[in-house]
C-alpha cells in the first residue's frame, strides 16, 4: 500500500471529489496560485481552473458567507480556513447560517458545505494561533465535526464530508500535514459518526481523536511493554459521536482516560465522561480521568508550551492512576 503524507491524502480527496462532482469547488486564502498555505490544494488550480479553485481576499466572514449561499444554491463548496484561529471571524456564518439554515427554512435549504483547515497548537505560534476548537464547534446542533489523525482517516473522512448534505467541519492538524501513513490506491470512504479502534486492549480505554490519537497509540505501544493493554478508541467524528463504541470499550476495560488537545472546561472529554458515567456506571472500577491542555492561553515560551500540552507522559500517568498502578 502506498505511504503518503496527511497533506497528500487530503489533496487526493479534494482532487477525486472535484473530478467526480463538478459542483465541488474550493475557496479560501491562498488556495490557488500559492497552492495553499500548507499546500493541501497543490495543483488543483491548474487541474480544475479558476472557477473551481478560488483565491479569496483576507476576509473570512465574507468568503464563508459566499460559501453558505452557494451551497444553498446547489454547489458543494469546500471552504479552507488558513487556520481555525482565523475562522473565529467567520463563526457567525458557520454557527448562525450554515448550522441553522436547514432547520429555520423548514427543510427547504440544506447546506452541503465543508469548512476545513488546521486546528490546535503547532509549535511556538503563541496564544492566539495555538487553539483547539473541537468543543466550540461540536457544541452546535446542525453541524458535523470530524477530526482525523492519520492520512488514511483524513482522506476517507474528507471525501465523506464533501458528499454529506449537511455542513461538516474538518479539523486538520498543522503538525500532521507532514506525517505519513498507508493510504490505499483504490477509492474508499470512512462513514461519518463511526469511531475506529486504533489499538485493541483489555486493561484501559483511551478515548481520543485527531492529533491525540497518535499520542494514544504511542502510549498503547509503550504500555504494552509493561503488560498494560490499551483499547484506543479514535472517535474520528466528534459530532455525532459514536457512543456505542465508547460503551463497548469501557464495559470491556472497566476504566477509561479521555485524551483531547483542547482545554478542560466544557471540553470534549467532559462530554465523553458524561456519556460513560451514565451508561457504564456499574462497569467502572475507577473514576474516569481526562488529559487535556492546561487551563491557560498557550504559552509562547518553548518550555512552558511543552508543559501546557497534553502528551504521552501525562497520558501514561493517567492510565496508571485509573489502573491503581501508581
Amino acid at each position, binding site marked *: 500500500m502506498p505511504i503518503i503524507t496527511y497533506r497528500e491524502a487530503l489533496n487526493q480527496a479534494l482532487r477525486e471529489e472535484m473530478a467526480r462532482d463538478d459542483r465541488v469547488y474550493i475557496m479560501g486564502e491562498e488556495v490557488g496560485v500559492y497552492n495553499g498555505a500548507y499546500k493541501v490544494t497543490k495543483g488543483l488550480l491548474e487541474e480544475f481552473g479558476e472557477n473551481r479553485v478560488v483565491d479569496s481576499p483576507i476576509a473570512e466572514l465574507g468568503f464563508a458567507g459566499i460559501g453558505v449561499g452557494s451551497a444553498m444554491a446547489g454547489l458543494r463548496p469546500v471552504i479552507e480556513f488558513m487556520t481555525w484561529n482565523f475562522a473565529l471571524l467567520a463563526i457567525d456564518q458557520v454557527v448562525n447560517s450554515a448550522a441553522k439554515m436547514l432547520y429555520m427554512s423548514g427543510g427547504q435549504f440544506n447546506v452541503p458545505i465543508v469548512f476545513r483547515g488546521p486546528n490546535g497548537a503547532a509549535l511556538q505560534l503563541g496564544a492566539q494561533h495555538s487553539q483547539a476548537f473541537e468543543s466550540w464547534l461540536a457544541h452546535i446542533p446542525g453541524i458535523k465535526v470530524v477530526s482525523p489523525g492519520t492520512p488514511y482517516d483524513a482522506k476517507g473522512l474528507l471525501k465523506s464530508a464533501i458528499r454529506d448534505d449537511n455542513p461538516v467541519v474538518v479539523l486538520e492538524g498543522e503538525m500532521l500535514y507532514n506525517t505519513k501513513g498507508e493510504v490505499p490506491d483504490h477509492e474508499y470512504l470512512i462513514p461519518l459518526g463511526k469511531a475506529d479502534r486504533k489499538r485493541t486492549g483489555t486493561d484501559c480505554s483511551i478515548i481520543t481523536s485527531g492529533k491525540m490519537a497518535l499520542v494514544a497509540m504511542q502510549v498503547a505501544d509503550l504500555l504494552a511493554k509493561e503488560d498494560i493493554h490499551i483499547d484506543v478508541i479514535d472517535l474520528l467524528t466528534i459530532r455525532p459521536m459514536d457512543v456505542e463504541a465508547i460503551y463497548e470499550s469501557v464495559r470491556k476495560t472497566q476504566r477509561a482516560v479521555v485524551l483531547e488537545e483542547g482545554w478542560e472546561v466544557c471540553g470534549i472529554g467532559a462530554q465523553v465522561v458524561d456519556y460513560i458515567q451514565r451508561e457504564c456506571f*456499574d462497569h467502572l472500577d475507577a473514576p474516569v480521568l481526562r488529559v487535556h491542555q492546561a487551563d491557560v492561553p498557550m504559552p509562547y515560551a518553548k518550555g512552558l508550551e511543552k508543559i501546557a500540552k497534553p502528551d504521552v507522559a501525562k497520558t501514561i500517568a493517567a492510565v496508571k492512576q485509573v489502573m491503581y498502578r501508581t
Partner: protein
Amino acid sequence: MATKIFMEALSPTMEEGRLVKWNMPEGAAVKSGDVLAEVETDKAVMELVARGNGILRRQLVAEGVTAAVGTLVGVIAAADEDIAALVSGAAAPTAAVTPPAAAASAAPTATSTTGAPPAAPAPPAPASSGPTRSSPLARRLARESGIDLGAVAGSGPAGRVIKRDVEAAVSGGGATASAIRRLPSAIGAAGSEYTDQPLTQIRKTIAKRLAESIGPIPTFYLTAEFDMTRAVEMRAAMVAQGEEYKVSVNDIILKAVATALAAHPEVNAHWLGDKIRFFNRVHLGMAVATDDGLIVPVIFDADRKGLRAIAHESRELAARARERKLKPEEYTGSTFSVSNLGMMQIDQFTAIINPPECGILAIGALDDTPVVVDGALVIRKRMRVTMSCDHRVIDGAVGARFLLDLRRMLENPLMLVF
C-alpha cells in the same frame, strides 16, 4: 469554646462502637448532659452525652457507622465559631485512633510561622471503619457474588474497594479472604441446609476475650446425671421381642441426642472464624476406638432416622471403622459428636471438641446408684454425661437447655417415638 465529641468507651472493654442514631440534628442547640446519640457497644446500646454547651455544628460519623474509641464524631461550638481546623483534623476514623492531640500538634508549625489558615485538609486516611469507599464495578461484583463490601479490605486510594479486592475475596485468596461475610439476603434461604449468621458485636467480644483466656477453642464443660432406668427398661423390652429389635443403650442415646439437636440448632453448629454456621440437618459423629486410634464416623441425618436404622448403622460403621474400611466421606461432615466410654467403666470424662464443631457429648458409665425419689431412697440406673462447649458459640445457658431436653428424652424415652 468548641467541645469535641468523641466516641467514648461506654463499657470497660469497648474498643469501638457503632453509632446507631443521632438524637439531634446538626444545628440543634445542646447543653451539657443532653443525649446526643445512641451507640452500640460490645455489650449494649448506650447513650453518648454532650460534654459542653452550644450548637451541634457537625456530625462527623454517620448513623450505622462503627468508629474506634477516641474517634472525633462531632463538634459542639458557638454558631459563628470557626471549627474548620477541628473538623479537618478529624479525617477518617483511623486517624483518630491516634489521640486527636497528635493531629493538632502537627498544625502549629504552619500557623505560628505564617499566621496563615491551616493547610487544606489532608486526603482522608484509609478508613478502617466508616462508609466503605468502593468503585461502582466493585459494588456490582460484590452484589452479584453475595459479598458484603464492608468486610472487604480496599486496596485503592483511601481504602477504596476495587475490582481486584472483590475478586480476591471471592476466590478466597489474599488477606481479605477471612473478611468474607455473606450478606443476610444470601443466607438462610428456605430449605437450605444451614444458616450463616454474621458475628454480632457481643459475639465478637465473647470470642475474642474467651479465646485469649483458654486455647484457640475456649471450652467449658457441663455435666449432668441422667436417670436411665426407663431407657434401660425400654431396651430390655425391645430385646425381648427378638434379635430384630435388639438395640444398645448407646443407640438410644444417639437417637435422643440427634432428636434434641434437631430442636437445638444453636448447639448444632460450626465456628468458621468470621461467622457461625447453624445446621438445619443433624450429622452425628460417633467416636470409635480402633487399634490405630480414634475415628469418628458419621450418621448422616440422624434425627430423621429411626432407632432401628441408627442401631444398624452405628454397628456397621463401628465394625468397618475397626477394619479401617471407612471412606473419607463417611467420617467427615459431622455437625456434633458423641463419645461413649461407659462400657470402659469411666464414670465421667471430658471429650475434646472436634473443630469446627462446637460441642461434643461425653457419655459415662451406667451404674446402679442410690438416689432419693419422693423422699425415699431407691436404686436407679444413673449415667453422667458431660458436654464440652465452644464458648465462642455456645453459652452456658444454651448448652444447659440442650441438656435439659436431652434429659427429658432419655428419662422418658417414649418421647423418642414422636
